[in-house]
């Protein structure tokens, strides 16, 4: 049975009804009397709905107005109250858990018992990038595997060459707390945003003398801070997450909003795009403790996971695209399989009591690097669920960890104003 019995109905309301419709769209949510018949329903007589019932943006949904009004009226009449809807959502949640539980025949770490243990890692800090005057909040690698961009609390965005430690570009934003930065796939531009509620794209020039800050272009506009940004497969589209509880997809050239994603009930702190082979989805995590998977084309929330006990600070896809990991203030990182539609591993230890701020997978997906607020980076065996190693060095919270595109290096950004590049 279709979710919405009215899908596919066309507007066939008469002129009088069209006028009444206009009134229906204005607040306060009042549906007025609509008269006339329509091609799809049988209600030929005038119907009305009590004040306070829902209003609909008819132009978008091509609804048969009088039938919709009928349904709304009938729905309310049948005793469908807020309480009954709440009860139904509770029942559905229980059903969701049951369905997920039915397919849990074994745990991931049990299946992984036959896999060889990871050999001792010899990852060491090889480069320390100094130059930011304040906490480094975010960073991103360029596809050329040697450049990276970082952003800081003092409003500065710096593009570095990680081999030579050269600072190639410095961009100054008029706001503090630049929480998000991303490198464009072509390597020719960077995006950055934060407390200014915007995400701007800055084209990078080969000419050292040119002032790159002057060419900065605002692309995304939110009603609260921008917490994360990412280019899609090209330089032309930008995906952003915001403290206003939404994610949005923007056209870089025109600044037009292409799609918005509503569903989180609190600030969205992080997003990650699925690896290109697996199609048009992305995952987001926020202060409502939920991780949501979205379809980029329709704006629909496809799957939702609410296992965390506190804010989710970071989400990252597994390299194959079939799973993703999350880091949270509840001091755990979790691993979810998208095809099984459930959490399949929790990475935690009694000795770890500080929140995890960031996660990233190694190239094969066997290792999960997680940065914590206790200044360390824990390296987890994704399959077995055990901790393989701890990386020390930072003198304040680790805000972001990212593995380089070729998998040879790990870059970590920290509130100690530095970035560290670590390799074997």
């Amino acid at each position, binding site marked *: 049975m279709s979710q919405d019995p009215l899908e596919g109905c066309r507007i066939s309301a008469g002129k009088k009804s069209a006028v009444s419709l206009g009134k229906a769209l204005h607040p306060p949510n009042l549906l007025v009397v609509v008269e006339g018949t329509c091609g799809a329903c049988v209600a030929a007589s005038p119907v009305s709905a009590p004040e306070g019932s829902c209003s609909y943006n008819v132009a978008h949904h091509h609804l048969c107005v009088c039938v919709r009004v009928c349904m709304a009226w009938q729905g309310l009449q049948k005793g469908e109250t807020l309480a009954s809807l709440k009860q139904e959502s509770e029942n559905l949640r229980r059903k969701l858990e049951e369905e997920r539980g039915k*397919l849990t025949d*074994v745990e991931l770490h049990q299946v992984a018992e036959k*896999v060889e243990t990871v050999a001792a890692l010899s990852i060491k800090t090889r480069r320390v990038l100094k130059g930011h005057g304040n906490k480094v909040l975010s960073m991103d690698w360029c596809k050329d595997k040697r450049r990276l961009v970082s952003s800081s609390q003092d409003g500065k965005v710096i593009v570095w060459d990680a081999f030579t430690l050269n600072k190639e570009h410095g961009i100054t934003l008029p706001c503090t707390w630049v929480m998000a930065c991303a490198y464009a796939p072509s390597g020719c531009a960077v995006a950055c945003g934060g407390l200014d509620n915007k995400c701007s794209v800055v084209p990078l020039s080969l000419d050292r003398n040119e002032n790159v800050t002057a060419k900065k272009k605002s692309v995304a506009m939110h009603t609260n801070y921008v917490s994360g940004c990412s280019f899609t497969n090209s330089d032309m589209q930008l995906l952003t997450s915001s403290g206003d509880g939404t994610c949005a997809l923007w056209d870089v050239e025109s600044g037009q909003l292409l799609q918005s994603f509503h569903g989180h009930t609190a600030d969205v702190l992080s997003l990650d795009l699925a690896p290109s082979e697996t199609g048009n989805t992305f995952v987001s995590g926020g202060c409502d403790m939920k991780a949501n998977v979205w379809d980029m084309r329709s704006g629909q929330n496809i*799957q939702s996971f609410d296992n965390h006990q506190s804010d989710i600070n970071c989400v990252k896809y597994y390299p194959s695209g079939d799973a993703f990991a999350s880091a949270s203030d509840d001091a755990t990182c979790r691993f979810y399989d998208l*095809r099984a539609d*459930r959490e399949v591993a929790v990475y935690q230890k009694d000795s770890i009591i500080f929140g995890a701020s960031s996660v990233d997978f*190694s190239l094969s997906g*066997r290792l999960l690097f997680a940065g914590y607020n206790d200044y360390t980076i824990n390296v987890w065996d994704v399959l077995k669920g055990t901790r393989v190693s701890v990386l020390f060095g930072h003198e304040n919270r680790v805000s972001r960890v990212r593995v380089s595109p070729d998998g040879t290096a790990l870059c970590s950004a920290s509130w100690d104003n530095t970035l560290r590049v670590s*390799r074997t």
Partner: protein
Amino acid sequence: MTSRMPSSSSVTQARQLVRQLRMEANIRRIRVSKASSDLMRYCGEQAKYDPLLMGIPASENPFRDKKPCTVL
């Protein structure tokens, strides 16, 4: 159902939630055992290409610790 509605009453929100949950409950799922073995297989196949996991032989590693050298 994208939310293009003007201010929604709590009834609309509740109905939206029910609709969303109904859709989520009806998606197709696979067994955890199958999902786990696929994840393991992916890790196994890609492990040899993972430098952080496997390490890089000292001869190829541009970042290896330098040995002391003497100038003749």
